[in-house]
């Protein structure tokens, strides 16, 4: 089966090949969406971030360093986008909604006790830091840049979030 590398697809997309761009999206879109969703806990925002991030990535494809992994670059764009959208939404919101209301009320995660359950006990900042760093492989510096925080603060968030998560997972293990 023909399975071109990301580098080949990026080159083709730069040259105007729609199918190559489409395959890049097909290959890396779901993971980028998951990263956005894990950061914000909101499917609608993750959808928007994927769309706007994908368009932005295509526009900036010429500036992409082909020696670096495309998935990491693309995911960073989508995550930055979702953080911007979260900021815009919170500034625009007229009616107060508590943080938990941002989590989807349906779907497999809520029903199966998945990621949102695991991260529920974390504050928004801790959740974002741990998701971006530990699950999606962004460096502390990259996370700091995305969240507009000093690197030391991110490290502190990570330490506290891990301590808290460890307690949750061990507690769940004890209960089983």
């Amino acid at each position: 089966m023909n399975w071109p590398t990301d580098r080949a697809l990026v080159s083709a997309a730069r040259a105007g090949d729609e199918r190559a761009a489409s395959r890049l999206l097909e290959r890396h879109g779901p993971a980028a969406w998951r990263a956005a969703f894990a950061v914000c806990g909101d499917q609608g925002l993750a959808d928007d971030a994927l769309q706007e991030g994908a368009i932005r990535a295509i526009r900036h494809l010429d500036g992409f360093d082909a020696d670096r992994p495309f998935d990491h670059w693309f995911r960073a764009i989508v995550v930055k986008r979702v953080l911007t959208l979260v900021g815009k939404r919170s500034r625009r919101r007229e009616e107060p909604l508590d943080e938990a209301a941002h989590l989807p009320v349906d779907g497999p995660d809520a029903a199966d006790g998945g990621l949102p359950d695991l991260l529920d006990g974390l504050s928004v900042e801790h959740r974002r830091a741990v998701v971006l760093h530990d699950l999606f492989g962004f460096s502390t510096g990259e996370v700091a840049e995305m969240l507009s925080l000093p690197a030391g603060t991110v490290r502190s968030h990570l330490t506290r979030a891990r301590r808290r998560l460890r307690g949750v997972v061990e507690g769940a293990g004890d209960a089983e």
Partner: protein
Amino acid sequence: MLSRREKRDARRALRRLGPSDEVMSRVDAAVRAQVRAMAGGDPAAAGAAPGGAGAAFAVRRRRRRLITAITVGALVVGSAAAGAALWVSHGAGEPIAGVTPEGRAGLRESPTLSSAAWVFQDQGAPHIRDVRRLPAIQFPPRTTYAQAVNALLRSVMESGTVPKSARVVAKLPPGVVWRTGDAKRGPRLDLTAPWGYTLPRGLVRTPTLRVDPSLSGAQASKLVEAFMKGAKVGRGRADGITADVPKLFRCQVQAIGRAPRVCPPVRPRATS
């Protein structure tokens, strides 16, 4: 770092999630359109790369496009409201924008949707206490709220009926908009106010539509014009126009098997 087990658990939970096919196809269309625009020498698209030639032009163009998209978006929403202002309750007037002729005919005959406040509004958004309470519809298990409202809107616009995948069931408790399902029992959506209602004002929300911002102003205008007439555009309905999914208040969501939460009292409608 998180332990291997913690990462495995979290990643496993995440793997079960993903964008819907509808979202992926929408994004795919937008990406292809962007590549086409850049290959076609659209200065807005080509100059958008950081430091690229024509960047300033691109910024201006994007700004214009954004303004156009916002205007068009306002036109869609505003026209829905304008159409609704013509509505005389129970039988006359116009439904929300984008309903096809078949949809209008279906709505006239539908025992439930013909009196749905979110489809027809006489003078702005009605108060949740003033509208007739309608039954709910049940979707197959694992249907999400976003999928449910999108399916409902599409079905109402195209045929004036509830979605084929759903069946009409008993009313939900007062104030509840969405009842979650489980592996066997599907979730239920209230037909009285499927898009919820505001708190504490208690105004029934109508669907809000959004125009794909990657479209040019001319494309968007054409699309909206066709959409407003209920015409079919491209492959079936206008793909560049999508429905926004509202965030419901927690009290408007009932977990299956649990008692509904109590919403704060809605403010009574102001009387003149």
